[in-house]
């Protein structure tokens, strides 16, 4: 089979030398027995465009241009960069030079012609890796989240007084059974999405060998039972696992393994070592602090609770902030468990008149702030979000309305620091306000809709709750919109392409 050359030509005006160079390379290549395809990036745009397949099948690549042509698509190919006149002057000599001197393009920091490789890429690595993981996670969040949403809506039942305070599935009826099953389906999705995310982030960093260790590590890090904690580590632990595995595997790849082992290095040696390594790290370095931290946090909340009875806004804001911090992770779970525990405990001891509603009410007010805040931000700042992100945001809207906080996870994972600040601030506002106004949440959906689908005692019926929660949502959306970084936007768009 004939060897194949691909080339790109370009010049300043895009009319003369672009085409002369293309003609020169085509002629010379044919004379020399090559199969050839030349893309002209001229004044009429790219013509005879090289496809991924063309490049994949090429033995040799040449860029003959007087303006900067991004060589990134030739990564992994033998590439020679020259000027258009080099081709025009003597196409045959240029191809011969490429045969001898072309170097494989893509080593970071290496130089080909005048172009330095890896400048811009380097800056966006963190976001690029995370975005790649998120692009795989989004469909699962949406599928699981929306199914969970449907089941969740069905789970609220009226009590004898017609108040919607009971939550649960009546599995004796076939509908109840179905909804209970659907609820489980959603839960499975949420459980799987954490290792899925970690796996693809790690794969983006260090390719296939990193995937298995990252998925196993993230699963353990998110499993309460395995960690002997009250809750798993959530997506923050998954992010940690993914990066540890990614860079650990990269390190392992650098080792000069004996030749006889080399074929099994990527499929056996690295995955086994890395899985063992990350499992130990998760159990002893990540897991124990999570369990211990949750216990400490719980005791601290008890202390705050007993010292803040005169200023419920403080406890409310703290609970709210915790809810928004890791969206279903350990901090969020601690706040949620604390709220329910204090409520059932004081309710049993002192009855509805004197029970402590503050933590539960605050946690329920805060639960929908992150997903709804994200959604609102994508509506107001349309240009700052990619297409996939907007789709994920409409799903977050659905989830947020029924109090499923996980809808915001893809956005937070993409840009943890800014997004956590935004979510914590908004959730704290919502939690603080409902506590300050004395709302009492008996049961129902933790979202603005809770005022209708649920039972909440509040100063102004229906309105107070909605206003408090909406204020939190607005704060979150505002911070997201104003702090959104270009690097994240770019990474999101690149991953889509």
């Amino acid at each position, binding site marked *: 089979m004939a060897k194949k050359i691909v080339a790109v030509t370009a010049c300043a005006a895009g009319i*003369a030398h672009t085409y002369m160079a293309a003609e020169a390379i085509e002629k010379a290549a044919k004379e020399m027995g090559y199969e050839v395809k030349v893309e002209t990036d001229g004044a*009429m745009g790219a013509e005879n465009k090289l496809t991924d397949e063309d490049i994949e099948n090429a033995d040799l690549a040449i860029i003959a241009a007087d303006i900067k042509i991004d060589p990134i698509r030739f990564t992994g190919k033998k590439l020679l960069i020259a000027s258009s*006149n080099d081709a025009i002057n003597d196409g045959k000599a240029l191809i011969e030079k490429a045969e001898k001197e072309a170097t494989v393009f893509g080593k970071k920091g290496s130089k080909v012609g005048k172009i330095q490789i890896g400048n811009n890429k380097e800056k966006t690595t963190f976001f690029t890796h995370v975005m790649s993981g998120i692009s795989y996670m989004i469909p699962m969040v949406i599928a699981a989240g929306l199914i969970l949403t449907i089941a969740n809506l069905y789970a609220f039942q009226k009590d004898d007084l017609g108040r919607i305070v009971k939550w649960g599935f009546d599995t004796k009826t076939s509908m109840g059974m179905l909804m209970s099953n659907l609820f489980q389906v959603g839960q499975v999705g949420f459980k799987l999405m954490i290792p899925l995310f970690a796996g693809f982030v790690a794969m983006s960093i260090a390719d296939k060998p990193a995937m298995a260790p990252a998925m196993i590590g993230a699963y353990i890090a998110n499993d309460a039972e395995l960690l002997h904690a009250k809750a798993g580590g959530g997506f923050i632990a998954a992010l940690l696992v993914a990066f540890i595995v990614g860079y650990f595997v990269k390190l392992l790849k650098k080792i000069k393994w004996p030749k006889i082992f080399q074929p099994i290095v990527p499929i056996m040696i690295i995955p086994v070592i890395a899985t063992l390594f990350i499992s130990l790290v998760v159990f002893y370095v990540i897991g124990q602090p999570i369990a211990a931290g949750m216990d400490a946090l719980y005791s601290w909340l008890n202390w705050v609770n007993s010292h803040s009875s005169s200023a419920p806004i403080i406890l409310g804001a703290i609970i709210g902030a915790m809810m928004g911090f890791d969206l279903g992770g350990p901090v969020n779970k601690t706040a949620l468990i604390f709220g329910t525990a204090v409520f059932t405990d004081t309710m049993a001891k002192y009855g509805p008149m004197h029970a402590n509603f503050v933590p539960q009410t605050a946690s329920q007010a805060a639960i929908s702030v992150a997903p709804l805040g994200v959604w609102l931000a994508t509506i107001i700042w349309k240009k700052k979000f990619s297409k996939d992100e907007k789709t994920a945001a409409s799903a977050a809207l659905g989830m947020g309305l029924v109090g499923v906080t996980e809808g915001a996870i893809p956005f937070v994972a993409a840009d943890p620091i800014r997004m956590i600040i935004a979510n914590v601030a908004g959730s704290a506002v919502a939690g603080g306000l409902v506590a300050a106004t004395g709302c009492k949440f008996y049961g129902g959906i933790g979202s603005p809709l809770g005022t209708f689908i649920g039972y909440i005692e509040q100063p102004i019926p229906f309105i107070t709750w909605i206003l408090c929660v909406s204020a939190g949502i607005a704060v979150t959306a505002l911070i997201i919109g104003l702090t959104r970084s270009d690097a994240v936007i770019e990474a999101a768009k690149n991953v889509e392409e």
Partner: protein
Amino acid sequence: MDKEIFNIENIFYDQTSTTQDEAFKSIGQFVAEKGYSNSADDFYKGLKAREVESTTGFKDGIAIPHSNDDSVIKPGLFLIKFSNGIEWNALDKKPIKVAFVLSIPKNGSTEHLKLLSKIARKLMDDEFRTSILENDDKNILSDAIDQI
């Protein structure tokens, strides 16, 4: 070839220029006279600016100077034959005897730009170059270009 872009009137025998600068000046004059540019001086500057980036001198005494400056009104091709060989820093260092000049409008139609790019490709054809170099009859030259 599209008559709007090239016709026999676009051939010019430059008998006086001896340097590239003089040649560019007379080309600017000619292109403006024919109504393809509204400023001989701007077109001249455009040619010079292009030349600074890299030589447009090709080989066997042929050059393809061009400009896409703002004065260009429409796409055009001009054939200039010099009586004196002109130093052009060409790829083969030979003095230039023939210039194919292109006027390129900033927002020209794809169709017209394509025609101009065809000329560029045709220059790589040895036979075409020989016929342009060896003939001085405007009709023969014009026919050769029309066949592109």
